[in-house]
Protein backbone atom coordinates (compact mmCIF):
# COMPACT_ATOMS: atom_id res chain seq x y z
CA UNK A 1 0.00 0.00 0.00
CA UNK A 2 1.25 3.44 -0.94
CA UNK A 3 1.30 5.31 2.39
CA UNK A 4 2.87 8.75 2.39
CA UNK A 5 4.52 10.95 4.97
CA UNK A 6 2.75 14.27 5.32
CA UNK A 7 3.79 17.32 7.32
CA UNK A 8 1.32 19.83 8.60
CA UNK A 9 0.70 22.01 11.61
CA UNK A 10 -1.97 20.77 14.00
CA UNK A 11 -3.14 23.07 16.78
CA UNK A 12 0.07 25.04 16.51
CA UNK A 13 2.45 22.08 16.52
CA UNK A 14 4.29 20.87 13.43
CA UNK A 15 3.77 17.16 12.96
CA UNK A 16 4.81 14.48 10.52
CA UNK A 17 2.40 11.62 10.00
CA UNK A 18 2.16 8.55 7.86
CA UNK A 19 -1.12 8.47 6.00
CA UNK A 20 -2.77 5.71 4.04
CA UNK A 21 -4.15 6.64 0.60
CA UNK A 22 -7.23 8.87 0.84
CA UNK A 23 -7.19 8.90 4.64
CA UNK A 24 -9.31 11.82 5.77
CA UNK A 25 -8.39 14.53 8.24
CA UNK A 26 -11.26 13.21 10.39
CA UNK A 27 -9.71 9.74 10.57
CA UNK A 28 -6.30 11.26 11.19
CA UNK A 29 -7.25 13.43 14.14
CA UNK A 30 -9.74 11.05 15.74
CA UNK A 31 -8.28 7.61 15.18
CA UNK A 32 -4.58 8.10 14.56
CA UNK A 33 -3.90 11.00 16.92
CA UNK A 34 -6.68 10.53 19.50
CA UNK A 35 -8.06 14.08 19.24
CA UNK A 36 -11.70 13.12 19.56
CA UNK A 37 -13.34 16.54 19.94
CA UNK A 38 -13.91 16.55 16.17
CA UNK A 39 -16.95 14.33 15.69
CA UNK A 40 -18.24 11.89 13.07
CA UNK A 41 -22.00 12.40 12.64
CA UNK A 42 -22.61 11.37 9.05
CA UNK A 43 -19.37 11.04 7.05
CA UNK A 44 -21.22 12.77 4.21
CA UNK A 45 -20.40 16.41 4.84
CA UNK A 46 -24.01 17.02 5.79
CA UNK A 47 -24.00 17.57 9.55
CA UNK A 48 -20.99 19.79 10.21
CA UNK A 49 -19.96 17.74 13.25
CA UNK A 50 -16.54 17.08 11.70
CA UNK A 51 -15.75 20.76 11.06
CA UNK A 52 -12.09 21.74 11.46
CA UNK A 53 -10.37 24.97 10.49
CA UNK A 54 -7.73 24.82 7.74
CA UNK A 55 -5.76 28.08 7.68
CA UNK A 56 -8.72 29.52 9.56
CA UNK A 57 -11.32 28.33 7.03
CA UNK A 58 -14.07 25.87 8.04
CA UNK A 59 -13.88 22.55 6.22
CA UNK A 60 -15.60 19.19 6.64
CA UNK A 61 -12.81 16.88 7.74
CA UNK A 62 -14.77 13.76 6.78
CA UNK A 63 -14.42 14.69 3.11
CA UNK A 64 -10.85 16.03 3.21
CA UNK A 65 -7.87 13.81 2.33
CA UNK A 66 -4.92 14.63 4.59
CA UNK A 67 -2.55 14.88 1.63
CA UNK A 68 -4.62 17.71 0.16
CA UNK A 69 -3.71 19.99 3.07
CA UNK A 70 -0.05 19.12 3.51
CA UNK A 71 1.82 22.06 4.92
CA UNK A 72 -1.32 23.85 6.08
CA UNK A 73 -2.46 24.84 9.58
CA UNK A 74 -5.24 22.72 11.02
CA UNK A 75 -7.19 23.70 14.13
CA UNK A 76 -9.49 21.43 16.07
CA UNK A 77 -11.44 22.32 19.21
CA UNK A 78 -8.55 21.01 21.29
CA UNK A 79 -6.46 23.80 19.77
CA UNK A 80 -8.92 26.45 20.90
CA UNK A 81 -9.15 25.25 24.50
CA UNK A 82 -6.66 27.03 26.77
CA UNK A 83 -4.82 24.94 29.36
CA UNK A 84 -6.60 26.93 32.03
CA UNK A 85 -10.16 28.18 31.80
CA UNK A 86 -12.17 28.58 28.63
CA UNK A 87 -12.04 30.53 25.39
CA UNK A 88 -14.74 33.25 25.39
CA UNK A 89 -16.72 31.34 22.76
CA UNK A 90 -16.70 28.28 24.99
CA UNK A 91 -17.75 30.39 27.97
CA UNK A 92 -20.60 31.87 25.97
CA UNK A 93 -21.85 28.44 24.87
CA UNK A 94 -21.64 27.16 28.43
CA UNK A 95 -23.40 30.12 30.04
CA UNK A 96 -26.13 30.37 27.40
CA UNK A 97 -27.08 26.66 27.44
CA UNK A 98 -26.10 26.46 23.79
CA UNK A 99 -25.14 22.83 24.26
CA UNK A 100 -27.34 19.90 25.32
CA UNK A 101 -26.13 16.53 24.09
CA UNK A 102 -22.93 18.29 23.05
CA UNK A 103 -22.34 16.37 19.85
CA UNK A 104 -22.68 19.34 17.47
CA UNK A 105 -20.82 21.68 19.82
CA UNK A 106 -17.21 21.25 18.64
CA UNK A 107 -18.18 21.92 15.02
CA UNK A 108 -20.32 24.90 15.99
CA UNK A 109 -17.61 26.50 18.12
CA UNK A 110 -15.01 26.29 15.36
CA UNK A 111 -17.32 27.89 12.80
CA UNK A 112 -18.09 30.62 15.32
CA UNK A 113 -14.35 31.19 15.78
CA UNK A 114 -13.95 31.57 12.03
CA UNK A 115 -16.91 33.97 11.91
CA UNK A 116 -15.77 36.21 14.75
CA UNK A 117 -12.23 36.34 13.39
CA UNK A 118 -13.65 37.90 10.22
CA UNK A 119 -16.63 39.75 11.61
CA UNK A 120 -16.30 40.78 15.27
CA UNK A 121 -19.87 42.11 15.51
CA UNK A 122 -22.06 39.94 13.33
CA UNK A 123 -25.76 40.63 12.92
CA UNK A 124 -28.24 37.91 13.73
CA UNK A 125 -28.60 37.17 10.03
CA UNK A 126 -24.84 36.88 9.60
CA UNK A 127 -24.67 34.50 12.54
CA UNK A 128 -27.44 32.32 11.12
CA UNK A 129 -25.87 32.33 7.65
CA UNK A 130 -22.52 31.20 9.03
CA UNK A 131 -24.06 28.23 10.87
CA UNK A 132 -26.21 26.78 8.08
CA UNK A 133 -23.73 23.93 7.64
CA UNK A 134 -23.97 22.83 11.27
CA UNK A 135 -26.84 20.68 12.36
CA UNK A 136 -28.22 20.59 15.91
CA UNK A 137 -31.10 18.33 16.93
CA UNK A 138 -31.38 19.43 20.55
CA UNK A 139 -31.33 23.17 21.14
CA UNK A 140 -33.53 24.51 18.36
CA UNK A 141 -30.56 26.79 17.50
CA UNK A 142 -31.82 29.88 19.35
CA UNK A 143 -29.52 29.45 22.40
CA UNK A 144 -26.61 28.97 19.99
CA UNK A 145 -27.39 32.21 18.13
CA UNK A 146 -27.57 34.03 21.46
CA UNK A 147 -24.30 32.46 22.54
CA UNK A 148 -22.60 33.79 19.43
CA UNK A 149 -23.81 37.34 20.11
CA UNK A 150 -22.67 36.93 23.70
CA UNK A 151 -19.29 35.57 22.56
CA UNK A 152 -18.84 38.56 20.24
CA UNK A 153 -19.47 40.91 23.14
CA UNK A 154 -17.09 39.03 25.40
CA UNK A 155 -14.37 39.15 22.77
CA UNK A 156 -14.92 42.81 21.92
CA UNK A 157 -15.01 43.79 25.56
CA UNK A 158 -11.52 42.48 26.18
Amino acid at each position, binding site marked *: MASKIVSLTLNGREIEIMVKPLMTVQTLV*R*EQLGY*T*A*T*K*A*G*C*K*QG*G*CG*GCTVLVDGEPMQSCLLPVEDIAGRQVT*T*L*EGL*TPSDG*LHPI*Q*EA*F*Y*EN*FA*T*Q*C*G*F*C*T*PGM*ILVVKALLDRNPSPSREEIVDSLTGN*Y*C*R*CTGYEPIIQAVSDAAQRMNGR
Partner: protein
Amino acid sequence: MTVAEQPLNVVGQSVNRRDGLGHVTGKTVYVDDISFPDMLHLKMVRSPVPHAKINGIDFSEAEKVPGFVRALTHKDVPKNVYTILTLIGVGPDEEPVLAEDKVMYQGEQVAAIVAETEQAAMEAVSRVKLDLEELPAVFDVEEALKDGAPILKDWGTNYFVYDYEYDLQNPSRKVRFGDVEKGFAEADFIVEERYQTSPIEHAPTETTGCIAKPEPDGRITVYTNTQALFFTLDNTALILQVPFQKLHFVGGTVGGGFGGKVDVIVEPIATLAAMLTGHPVRYAFSREEEMRSSSSRGAWRMCFKDGVTKDGRILARQVTSYADAGAYNRHTPYAVTKHAANVAGPYRIPNVSIDAYCVYTNRQPSSAMRGFAVTPASFATEVQMDKIAETVGMDPWEIRFINAYRNGEMRPHQKEVEDATLIEVMQAAAELVGHELSEDYKQMSSGWGE
Protein backbone atom coordinates in the same frame (compact mmCIF):
# COMPACT_ATOMS: atom_id res chain seq x y z
CA MET B 1 -38.61 28.19 60.17
CA THR B 2 -40.36 25.29 58.48
CA VAL B 3 -38.92 23.64 55.40
CA ALA B 4 -41.47 25.46 53.30
CA GLU B 5 -40.38 28.83 54.69
CA GLN B 6 -36.63 28.41 54.13
CA PRO B 7 -35.15 30.41 51.27
CA LEU B 8 -34.63 28.47 48.05
CA ASN B 9 -30.98 28.29 47.01
CA VAL B 10 -31.26 26.35 43.78
CA VAL B 11 -34.92 26.50 42.69
CA GLY B 12 -35.36 29.57 40.54
CA GLN B 13 -31.61 29.92 39.90
CA SER B 14 -29.94 29.24 36.59
CA VAL B 15 -27.72 26.23 37.13
CA ASN B 16 -25.15 25.31 34.49
CA ARG B 17 -25.12 21.82 33.07
CA ARG B 18 -22.73 19.41 34.75
CA ASP B 19 -21.62 18.11 31.37
CA GLY B 20 -21.46 21.58 29.78
CA LEU B 21 -17.73 22.03 30.35
CA GLY B 22 -16.99 18.68 28.72
CA HIS B 23 -19.16 19.58 25.75
CA VAL B 24 -17.65 23.01 25.05
CA THR B 25 -14.09 21.72 25.34
CA GLY B 26 -14.79 18.59 23.33
CA LYS B 27 -13.69 16.43 26.23
CA THR B 28 -17.00 14.61 26.72
CA VAL B 29 -16.43 10.99 25.74
CA TYR B 30 -18.99 9.45 23.37
CA VAL B 31 -19.03 5.81 22.30
CA ASP B 32 -17.29 6.55 19.01
CA ASP B 33 -14.45 8.28 20.88
CA ILE B 34 -13.54 5.00 22.51
CA SER B 35 -11.26 2.61 20.68
CA PHE B 36 -9.15 -0.47 21.34
CA PRO B 37 -6.15 -1.67 19.34
CA ASP B 38 -7.66 -5.11 18.62
CA MET B 39 -11.19 -3.85 18.02
CA LEU B 40 -13.20 -5.45 15.24
CA HIS B 41 -16.02 -3.86 13.27
CA LEU B 42 -19.49 -5.30 12.75
CA LYS B 43 -21.59 -4.31 9.77
CA MET B 44 -25.02 -5.69 9.02
CA VAL B 45 -26.40 -7.40 5.94
CA ARG B 46 -29.87 -5.93 5.53
CA SER B 47 -32.89 -6.97 3.53
CA PRO B 48 -33.19 -4.98 0.29
CA VAL B 49 -36.92 -5.69 0.03
CA PRO B 50 -39.92 -5.20 2.34
CA HIS B 51 -41.22 -8.78 2.56
CA ALA B 52 -39.59 -12.01 1.49
CA LYS B 53 -38.81 -15.60 2.35
CA ILE B 54 -35.12 -16.26 2.88
CA ASN B 55 -34.12 -19.35 0.92
CA GLY B 56 -30.40 -19.05 1.54
CA ILE B 57 -27.43 -16.86 2.31
CA ASP B 58 -24.10 -17.25 0.50
CA PHE B 59 -21.06 -15.90 2.34
CA SER B 60 -18.44 -17.42 0.05
CA GLU B 61 -17.46 -14.18 -1.71
CA ALA B 62 -17.63 -12.17 1.49
CA GLU B 63 -15.22 -14.56 3.21
CA LYS B 64 -12.56 -13.80 0.61
CA VAL B 65 -12.37 -10.10 1.51
CA PRO B 66 -9.05 -9.39 3.26
CA GLY B 67 -9.80 -8.66 6.90
CA PHE B 68 -12.97 -10.77 7.05
CA VAL B 69 -13.21 -12.44 10.47
CA ARG B 70 -16.60 -14.17 10.62
CA ALA B 71 -20.27 -14.00 9.88
CA LEU B 72 -23.11 -14.43 12.35
CA THR B 73 -26.58 -15.69 11.53
CA HIS B 74 -29.63 -16.43 13.65
CA LYS B 75 -28.16 -19.85 14.42
CA ASP B 76 -25.45 -18.15 16.47
CA VAL B 77 -27.88 -16.25 18.67
CA PRO B 78 -28.76 -18.16 21.88
CA LYS B 79 -32.26 -16.69 22.16
CA ASN B 80 -32.97 -15.04 18.87
CA VAL B 81 -35.70 -12.64 19.89
CA TYR B 82 -35.70 -9.05 21.12
CA THR B 83 -37.30 -9.11 24.54
CA ILE B 84 -38.13 -5.47 25.15
CA LEU B 85 -41.82 -6.00 25.76
CA THR B 86 -41.33 -8.89 28.17
CA LEU B 87 -39.55 -6.63 30.59
CA ILE B 88 -42.46 -4.21 30.73
CA GLY B 89 -45.05 -6.93 30.99
CA VAL B 90 -46.40 -6.78 27.46
CA GLY B 91 -46.02 -9.70 25.11
CA PRO B 92 -45.42 -11.48 22.84
CA ASP B 93 -41.83 -10.96 21.75
CA GLU B 94 -41.63 -11.54 18.05
CA GLU B 95 -38.76 -9.61 16.51
CA PRO B 96 -35.72 -11.74 15.72
CA VAL B 97 -32.28 -10.34 16.37
CA LEU B 98 -31.21 -11.84 13.05
CA ALA B 99 -33.85 -12.93 10.54
CA GLU B 100 -34.65 -16.62 10.42
CA ASP B 101 -36.80 -17.68 7.51
CA LYS B 102 -38.23 -14.36 6.37
CA VAL B 103 -37.73 -10.62 6.36
CA MET B 104 -40.52 -8.19 7.10
CA TYR B 105 -39.14 -4.74 6.26
CA GLN B 106 -36.57 -3.21 3.97
CA GLY B 107 -33.47 -2.79 6.10
CA GLU B 108 -34.14 -5.69 8.47
CA GLN B 109 -31.02 -7.27 10.00
CA VAL B 110 -30.27 -10.59 8.28
CA ALA B 111 -26.64 -11.45 9.03
CA ALA B 112 -23.74 -9.74 10.76
CA ILE B 113 -20.24 -9.51 9.30
CA VAL B 114 -17.28 -8.94 11.59
CA ALA B 115 -14.00 -7.73 10.09
CA GLU B 116 -10.75 -6.07 11.02
CA THR B 117 -11.63 -2.68 9.54
CA GLU B 118 -14.85 -0.84 8.86
CA GLN B 119 -14.07 -0.79 5.12
CA ALA B 120 -13.45 -4.53 5.03
CA ALA B 121 -16.73 -5.13 6.87
CA MET B 122 -18.63 -2.89 4.43
CA GLU B 123 -17.05 -4.58 1.46
CA ALA B 124 -17.78 -8.06 2.82
CA VAL B 125 -21.41 -7.08 3.44
CA SER B 126 -21.71 -5.94 -0.18
CA ARG B 127 -20.56 -9.38 -1.32
CA VAL B 128 -23.02 -11.44 0.68
CA LYS B 129 -25.62 -12.96 -1.62
CA LEU B 130 -29.17 -13.29 -0.32
CA ASP B 131 -31.51 -15.77 -1.98
CA LEU B 132 -34.88 -14.15 -1.41
CA GLU B 133 -38.34 -14.92 -2.66
CA GLU B 134 -40.37 -11.72 -2.51
CA LEU B 135 -43.80 -11.84 -0.95
CA PRO B 136 -46.71 -9.43 -1.33
CA ALA B 137 -46.29 -6.51 1.04
CA VAL B 138 -48.66 -4.08 2.69
CA PHE B 139 -47.79 -0.48 3.58
CA ASP B 140 -51.00 1.11 4.85
CA VAL B 141 -52.74 0.49 8.19
CA GLU B 142 -56.28 0.28 6.85
CA GLU B 143 -55.18 -1.89 3.92
CA ALA B 144 -53.48 -4.19 6.41
CA LEU B 145 -56.75 -4.71 8.27
CA LYS B 146 -58.79 -5.55 5.17
CA ASP B 147 -59.66 -9.11 4.21
CA GLY B 148 -57.18 -10.42 1.71
CA ALA B 149 -54.21 -8.42 2.98
CA PRO B 150 -51.01 -10.45 3.29
CA ILE B 151 -50.85 -11.70 6.88
CA LEU B 152 -47.63 -10.68 8.59
CA LYS B 153 -47.70 -12.35 11.98
CA ASP B 154 -47.37 -15.99 12.94
CA TRP B 155 -50.44 -15.73 15.11
CA GLY B 156 -52.46 -15.02 11.99
CA THR B 157 -53.30 -11.33 12.15
CA ASN B 158 -51.89 -7.93 11.20
CA TYR B 159 -52.77 -6.47 14.57
CA PHE B 160 -51.67 -6.82 18.16
CA VAL B 161 -54.05 -8.95 20.21
CA TYR B 162 -54.57 -7.23 23.54
CA ASP B 163 -54.65 -9.93 26.18
CA TYR B 164 -57.81 -9.02 27.96
CA GLU B 165 -59.85 -7.90 25.00
CA TYR B 166 -63.42 -8.95 25.43
CA ASP B 167 -64.58 -8.41 21.90
CA LEU B 168 -62.85 -10.87 19.62
CA GLN B 169 -64.41 -9.25 16.55
CA ASN B 170 -62.74 -5.95 17.34
CA PRO B 171 -59.13 -6.33 18.50
CA SER B 172 -58.45 -2.83 19.71
CA ARG B 173 -57.37 -1.18 22.93
CA LYS B 174 -60.75 0.13 24.08
CA VAL B 175 -62.15 2.89 26.20
CA ARG B 176 -65.89 2.94 26.79
CA PHE B 177 -67.48 5.71 28.84
CA GLY B 178 -71.19 6.59 28.80
CA ASP B 179 -73.12 6.15 25.53
CA VAL B 180 -71.78 7.92 22.46
CA GLU B 181 -74.82 7.14 20.31
CA LYS B 182 -77.03 8.87 22.84
CA GLY B 183 -74.60 11.79 22.88
CA PHE B 184 -74.65 12.08 19.09
CA ALA B 185 -78.45 11.98 19.10
CA GLU B 186 -78.59 14.91 21.53
CA ALA B 187 -75.96 16.96 19.73
CA ASP B 188 -76.64 19.96 17.52
CA PHE B 189 -73.57 19.40 15.31
CA ILE B 190 -71.53 16.38 14.31
CA VAL B 191 -67.88 17.19 13.54
CA GLU B 192 -65.98 14.43 11.75
CA GLU B 193 -62.40 14.42 10.56
CA ARG B 194 -59.50 12.13 9.76
CA TYR B 195 -55.98 13.03 10.89
CA GLN B 196 -52.74 11.54 9.66
CA THR B 197 -49.28 12.07 11.10
CA SER B 198 -45.96 11.08 9.53
CA PRO B 199 -43.29 8.71 10.72
CA ILE B 200 -40.54 11.03 11.90
CA GLU B 201 -36.90 10.06 12.13
CA HIS B 202 -35.15 11.15 15.32
CA ALA B 203 -31.95 11.83 13.34
CA PRO B 204 -29.72 12.34 16.39
CA THR B 205 -26.41 13.97 15.50
CA GLU B 206 -24.67 10.93 17.00
CA THR B 207 -25.79 7.64 15.46
CA THR B 208 -26.77 4.58 17.51
CA GLY B 209 -23.79 2.48 18.47
CA CYS B 210 -21.89 0.41 21.01
CA ILE B 211 -18.61 -1.36 21.64
CA ALA B 212 -18.64 -4.71 23.46
CA LYS B 213 -15.32 -5.67 25.04
CA PRO B 214 -14.49 -9.02 26.66
CA GLU B 215 -12.64 -8.55 29.95
CA PRO B 216 -10.01 -10.91 31.37
CA ASP B 217 -12.28 -11.85 34.29
CA GLY B 218 -14.91 -13.25 31.93
CA ARG B 219 -17.26 -10.28 32.03
CA ILE B 220 -18.11 -8.16 29.03
CA THR B 221 -18.02 -4.36 29.20
CA VAL B 222 -20.42 -2.71 26.77
CA TYR B 223 -19.97 0.97 26.01
CA THR B 224 -23.23 2.19 24.58
CA ASN B 225 -25.26 5.32 23.82
CA THR B 226 -28.56 3.68 24.68
CA GLN B 227 -31.00 5.89 26.55
CA ALA B 228 -31.98 2.95 28.75
CA LEU B 229 -28.81 1.49 30.21
CA PHE B 230 -30.13 -1.13 32.63
CA PHE B 231 -33.06 -2.02 30.38
CA THR B 232 -30.55 -2.69 27.60
CA LEU B 233 -28.35 -4.75 29.88
CA ASP B 234 -31.29 -6.91 30.94
CA ASN B 235 -32.44 -7.49 27.38
CA THR B 236 -28.93 -8.32 26.22
CA ALA B 237 -28.53 -10.86 29.01
CA LEU B 238 -31.84 -12.51 28.13
CA ILE B 239 -30.95 -12.72 24.45
CA LEU B 240 -27.49 -14.10 25.13
CA GLN B 241 -28.76 -16.35 27.93
CA VAL B 242 -26.09 -15.21 30.35
CA PRO B 243 -26.42 -14.13 33.98
CA PHE B 244 -27.03 -10.39 34.26
CA GLN B 245 -23.83 -9.94 36.28
CA LYS B 246 -21.69 -11.09 33.39
CA LEU B 247 -22.43 -7.80 31.66
CA HIS B 248 -21.13 -4.40 32.66
CA PHE B 249 -22.85 -1.60 30.75
CA VAL B 250 -21.18 1.81 30.61
CA GLY B 251 -23.12 4.71 29.21
CA GLY B 252 -25.36 7.65 29.93
CA THR B 253 -23.63 9.95 27.44
CA VAL B 254 -26.02 10.14 24.53
CA GLY B 255 -25.48 12.38 21.51
CA GLY B 256 -29.19 12.88 21.05
CA GLY B 257 -31.76 10.18 21.65
CA PHE B 258 -35.30 11.54 21.67
CA GLY B 259 -36.61 8.01 22.08
CA GLY B 260 -34.64 6.60 19.18
CA LYS B 261 -32.05 4.87 21.31
CA VAL B 262 -34.33 2.67 23.40
CA ASP B 263 -34.78 -0.31 21.13
CA VAL B 264 -31.77 -2.34 22.32
CA ILE B 265 -30.89 -3.10 18.71
CA VAL B 266 -27.08 -2.99 18.52
CA GLU B 267 -25.94 -4.24 21.93
CA PRO B 268 -27.02 -7.90 21.83
CA ILE B 269 -25.39 -8.73 18.51
CA ALA B 270 -22.22 -6.76 19.24
CA THR B 271 -21.88 -8.47 22.61
CA LEU B 272 -22.40 -11.86 21.02
CA ALA B 273 -19.74 -11.09 18.40
CA ALA B 274 -17.35 -10.07 21.16
CA MET B 275 -18.00 -13.31 23.00
CA LEU B 276 -17.50 -15.40 19.87
CA THR B 277 -14.36 -13.63 18.61
CA GLY B 278 -12.72 -12.77 21.92
CA HIS B 279 -12.16 -9.22 20.61
CA PRO B 280 -13.80 -5.88 21.27
CA VAL B 281 -16.47 -5.41 18.61
CA ARG B 282 -17.95 -2.11 17.48
CA TYR B 283 -21.42 -1.93 15.89
CA ALA B 284 -22.61 1.55 15.03
CA PHE B 285 -25.14 2.74 12.49
CA SER B 286 -24.02 4.74 9.52
CA ARG B 287 -26.05 7.86 8.87
CA GLU B 288 -27.92 6.01 6.13
CA GLU B 289 -28.80 3.15 8.50
CA GLU B 290 -29.92 5.65 11.11
CA MET B 291 -32.24 7.32 8.61
CA ARG B 292 -33.57 4.27 6.79
CA SER B 293 -33.42 1.27 9.10
CA SER B 294 -33.58 2.53 12.66
CA SER B 295 -36.97 3.05 14.23
CA SER B 296 -38.91 6.24 13.67
CA ARG B 297 -41.83 7.84 15.48
CA GLY B 298 -44.96 5.88 14.61
CA ALA B 299 -47.39 7.32 12.12
CA TRP B 300 -50.96 7.58 13.38
CA ARG B 301 -54.28 7.70 11.55
CA MET B 302 -56.97 9.08 13.85
CA CYS B 303 -60.65 9.30 12.93
CA PHE B 304 -62.69 11.63 15.09
CA LYS B 305 -66.45 11.96 15.35
CA ASP B 306 -67.70 14.50 17.86
CA GLY B 307 -71.22 15.43 18.88
CA VAL B 308 -71.32 19.10 19.94
CA THR B 309 -74.01 21.42 21.28
CA LYS B 310 -74.60 24.86 19.82
CA ASP B 311 -73.04 26.40 22.90
CA GLY B 312 -69.81 24.54 22.27
CA ARG B 313 -70.00 21.64 24.70
CA ILE B 314 -68.72 18.29 23.48
CA LEU B 315 -71.35 15.69 24.38
CA ALA B 316 -69.78 12.70 22.70
CA ARG B 317 -66.42 11.81 21.19
CA GLN B 318 -65.69 8.70 19.22
CA VAL B 319 -62.12 8.04 18.08
CA THR B 320 -60.75 5.23 15.98
CA SER B 321 -56.96 5.26 15.81
CA TYR B 322 -54.50 3.14 13.90
CA ALA B 323 -50.85 3.03 14.91
CA ASP B 324 -48.50 1.91 12.17
CA ALA B 325 -46.16 -0.29 14.18
CA GLY B 326 -44.26 -1.22 11.05
CA ALA B 327 -43.00 -4.76 10.83
CA TYR B 328 -42.52 -5.45 14.54
CA ASN B 329 -43.93 -4.48 17.92
CA ARG B 330 -40.98 -2.72 19.54
CA HIS B 331 -42.82 -0.52 22.07
CA THR B 332 -45.94 0.16 20.04
CA PRO B 333 -48.47 -2.03 21.92
CA TYR B 334 -47.59 -0.01 25.02
CA ALA B 335 -47.92 3.20 23.01
CA VAL B 336 -51.39 2.31 21.83
CA THR B 337 -52.51 1.94 25.45
CA LYS B 338 -51.09 5.38 26.28
CA HIS B 339 -52.74 6.81 23.22
CA ALA B 340 -56.14 5.39 24.11
CA ALA B 341 -55.86 6.95 27.56
CA ASN B 342 -55.05 10.37 26.17
CA VAL B 343 -56.68 10.89 22.80
CA ALA B 344 -59.92 12.22 24.24
CA GLY B 345 -57.86 15.19 25.33
CA PRO B 346 -57.88 17.19 28.57
CA TYR B 347 -61.59 17.78 28.21
CA ARG B 348 -64.77 16.88 30.10
CA ILE B 349 -66.78 14.69 27.75
CA PRO B 350 -69.62 12.59 29.21
CA ASN B 351 -69.69 9.98 26.44
CA VAL B 352 -66.48 8.62 24.96
CA SER B 353 -65.65 5.60 22.84
CA ILE B 354 -62.07 4.91 21.76
CA ASP B 355 -60.71 2.06 19.68
CA ALA B 356 -56.96 2.12 19.15
CA TYR B 357 -55.28 -0.51 16.99
CA CYS B 358 -51.65 -1.57 16.82
CA VAL B 359 -51.30 -2.54 13.18
CA TYR B 360 -48.42 -4.20 11.37
CA THR B 361 -47.20 -3.21 7.93
CA ASN B 362 -44.02 -4.00 6.02
CA ARG B 363 -42.51 -0.66 6.95
CA GLN B 364 -39.62 0.33 9.19
CA PRO B 365 -40.66 -0.60 12.76
CA SER B 366 -41.72 2.45 14.69
CA SER B 367 -40.91 3.13 18.28
CA ALA B 368 -40.70 5.79 20.92
CA MET B 369 -40.21 9.46 20.25
CA ARG B 370 -40.88 12.43 22.48
CA GLY B 371 -44.40 12.25 23.81
CA PHE B 372 -44.73 8.72 22.44
CA ALA B 373 -48.28 8.20 21.04
CA VAL B 374 -49.58 11.28 22.82
CA THR B 375 -48.00 14.05 20.73
CA PRO B 376 -49.79 12.81 17.59
CA ALA B 377 -52.98 12.53 19.65
CA SER B 378 -52.58 16.13 20.80
CA PHE B 379 -52.22 17.28 17.22
CA ALA B 380 -55.48 15.61 16.26
CA THR B 381 -57.34 16.65 19.40
CA GLU B 382 -56.37 20.30 19.14
CA VAL B 383 -57.06 20.66 15.42
CA GLN B 384 -60.39 19.01 16.12
CA MET B 385 -61.12 21.59 18.83
CA ASP B 386 -60.44 24.37 16.31
CA LYS B 387 -62.77 22.71 13.83
CA ILE B 388 -65.45 22.50 16.48
CA ALA B 389 -65.00 26.20 17.18
CA GLU B 390 -65.35 26.94 13.48
CA THR B 391 -68.44 24.73 13.12
CA VAL B 392 -70.21 26.16 16.14
CA GLY B 393 -69.07 29.72 15.40
CA MET B 394 -67.21 30.24 18.64
CA ASP B 395 -63.74 31.46 19.55
CA PRO B 396 -61.14 28.63 19.82
CA TRP B 397 -60.09 29.86 23.27
CA GLU B 398 -63.68 29.70 24.51
CA ILE B 399 -64.21 26.17 23.22
CA ARG B 400 -61.27 25.04 25.31
CA PHE B 401 -62.25 26.93 28.45
CA ILE B 402 -65.75 25.51 28.28
CA ASN B 403 -64.63 21.93 27.78
CA ALA B 404 -61.47 21.81 29.91
CA TYR B 405 -61.73 19.18 32.59
CA ARG B 406 -61.60 20.17 36.24
CA ASN B 407 -60.14 18.46 39.28
CA GLY B 408 -62.33 15.69 40.62
CA GLU B 409 -64.06 14.95 37.33
CA MET B 410 -63.89 11.49 35.82
CA ARG B 411 -61.82 10.86 32.72
CA PRO B 412 -63.08 8.39 30.11
CA HIS B 413 -60.63 5.69 31.17
CA GLN B 414 -61.97 5.87 34.72
CA LYS B 415 -59.30 7.94 36.37
CA GLU B 416 -60.20 10.97 38.39
CA VAL B 417 -58.69 14.25 37.27
CA GLU B 418 -55.95 15.43 39.61
CA ASP B 419 -53.68 18.44 39.28
CA ALA B 420 -55.48 19.86 36.25
CA THR B 421 -54.08 23.22 35.13
CA LEU B 422 -55.31 23.69 31.57
CA ILE B 423 -57.46 26.67 32.53
CA GLU B 424 -54.71 28.40 34.49
CA VAL B 425 -52.18 27.79 31.71
CA MET B 426 -54.54 29.21 29.09
CA GLN B 427 -55.13 32.28 31.26
CA ALA B 428 -51.39 32.83 31.59
CA ALA B 429 -50.88 32.20 27.88
CA ALA B 430 -53.61 34.68 26.95
CA GLU B 431 -51.89 37.33 29.02
CA LEU B 432 -48.50 36.57 27.49
CA VAL B 433 -49.77 36.89 23.92
CA GLY B 434 -52.02 39.85 24.66
CA HIS B 435 -55.29 38.06 24.03
CA GLU B 436 -58.13 39.61 25.95
CA LEU B 437 -60.32 37.08 27.75
CA SER B 438 -63.80 37.84 29.00
CA GLU B 439 -64.23 38.18 32.75
CA ASP B 440 -65.97 34.77 32.95
CA TYR B 441 -62.90 33.04 31.57
CA LYS B 442 -60.52 35.05 33.70
CA GLN B 443 -62.41 33.85 36.76
CA MET B 444 -62.50 30.19 35.79
CA SER B 445 -60.48 27.68 37.74
CA SER B 446 -59.55 24.02 37.53
CA GLY B 447 -60.84 23.63 41.03
CA TRP B 448 -57.74 23.74 43.21
CA GLY B 449 -58.39 23.35 46.88
CA GLU B 450 -62.08 22.73 46.37
